């Protein structure tokens, strides 16, 4: 949660790896020259000298401040430039900024995490935290949806997450698709009934 004395000053970081997630989304792995300790829900500004800066929430674990993963949809000037970068490139990171999720309030609660599309990226940092403290939590239900199967993020991790004790994960796509045998429907609709017994709600909004 600490900031540099000058919060506008970028911390130099090297792009260590790039992972293709979907046709338009990549995960970028950064190694900053100093640790960037963050709470899930906090964000950083990625600074590309001469192009600009844009805010992103890390998709990696808050337990690993020396290695930040950020999952980014190609959609504007900064993200177009990011998608052109090769491993080894240097850029700047400012932050962490924002207040983050009030994760201490999750203690002893059932947890429902609902995300859609590239929105699972910032939630993954929260999931890593939730998995880490799952002994202190109730049931953990993760509902994820995307428009089509090829836009689902982090597909190779679903089995791993589902295998964790107390964790249930399910993915849906918005409309039927030839390559999709799972559930269809918009995730906010399919998430309306999750548990038959009422769960104690835990708001995940920052306050």
């Amino acid at each position, binding site marked *: 949660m600490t900031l540099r004395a*000058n*919060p*506008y*000053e970028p911390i130099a970081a090297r792009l260590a790896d790039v992972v293709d997630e979907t046709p338009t989304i990549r995960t970028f792995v950064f190694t900053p020259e100093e640790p960037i300790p963050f709470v899930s829900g906090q964000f950083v500004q990625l600074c590309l000298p001469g192009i600009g800066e844009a805010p992103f929430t890390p998709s990696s674990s808050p337990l690993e401040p020396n290695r930040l993963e950020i999952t980014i949809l190609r*959609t*504007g000037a900064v993200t177009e430039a990011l998608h052109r970068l090769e491993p080894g490139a240097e850029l*700047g990171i400012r932050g962490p900024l924002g207040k983050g999720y009030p994760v201490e309030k999750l203690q002893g609660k059932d947890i429902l995490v609902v995300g859609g599309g590239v929105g699972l990226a910032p939630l993954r940092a929260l999931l890593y935290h939730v998995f880490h403290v799952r002994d202190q939590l109730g049931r953990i239900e993760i509902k994820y949806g995307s428009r089509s199967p090829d836009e689902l993020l982090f597909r190779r991790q679903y089995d791993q997450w589902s295998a964790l004790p107390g964790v249930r994960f399910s993915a849906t796509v918005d409309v039927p698709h030839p390559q999709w045998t799972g559930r269809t429907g918009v995730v906010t609709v399919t998430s309306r009934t999750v548990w038959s017994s009422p769960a104690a709600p835990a708001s995940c909004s920052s306050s």
Partner: protein
Amino acid sequence: MHRTPRFLREDDLSALISALPGTRCYQPIEKPTGTDYGTPSSSPPSLRGKRPTSPTKPFFLPSRERVAAFWGSRDLPEIEPFSLVGLRNCDLLSIRYLDHVFLGGVCEDPFYKAHRAAAFLVSVDCSPPQESCFCTAVGGVPYADGGYDLNLTPVAEGYLVVAGTGAGESVLLATAALLTEAKAELLAEGEELRARMVESLSTAARSTPDPQVVAERLGGSEAHASWEPWAGKCVECGACTAVCPTCHCYYIIDSNDAAPGSYTKIRTWDSCLLAEYARMAGMGAKLTPRPRLRSRLANRVLHKYVYSFAQYGMCGCLGCGRCDEACLGAIAIRDVVNAVGASR
């Protein structure tokens, strides 16, 4: 603290000013375009005329300031001490407001903090108020009750001088030879001036209801149709936010002015009235949170009159009237508040 005013003769004003701390002293100077801050070499400052056209915020939040470099030094800015003479109470209150914004949150802004720490503030009671002034309508008064290092109250043959800080007291000690005891008649003259200014403001200012009442009436009205006529007059020039002493939105751009290929981060003023404000990346239909001018204009007024109370416990409009003077669409914020408030 020496809170009893001392008397300074008009002829000794320059001597007092030359004893102020800092290498530079900015004072109001009358120009054909209006009164504004400058560093005059000889002429005495205009302390009995109109308040400066510009707000004081550029001294603390320059319109363009380098805030970082790729990959520059970690040194924080060192600002040379300076004195600022002729601030009005609305200027002092605007500094209090900006202190909340830049020093009162989860982190302090090191640049604002450095400018602020370097400044020695000399305020002066208003005489006479300007046509556009309406501080009394938003709960203010045309004379300072704190926030200054020194305050001057103009009387017929000089000024009543009072220190508000230890730094101000030091200046009074160093210039003790210029100061005399302020006799009861002079103190009464100062009080009378203050009362007269409040009186003339209250009769001249088009009435605006109590800001707390306005806040209740305008709360949650951003989508209300009564903003529409005002959006029709607004030409989206951003002059109101530039001259507003409490508007503080900024934008950070990369610049390679220093050397080709070497970039610095420049903080510049932004304006919430501009269509590009808070624009996000992407190709969606709604690239900014407020695509309509009507809601941008409403948001600016609501921030002043409603949200600022919740954020900082004070009204964000100090009644200085600068936006009225600057507006190309002839919009007076008081009229907006009255009209929208009346329609609710």
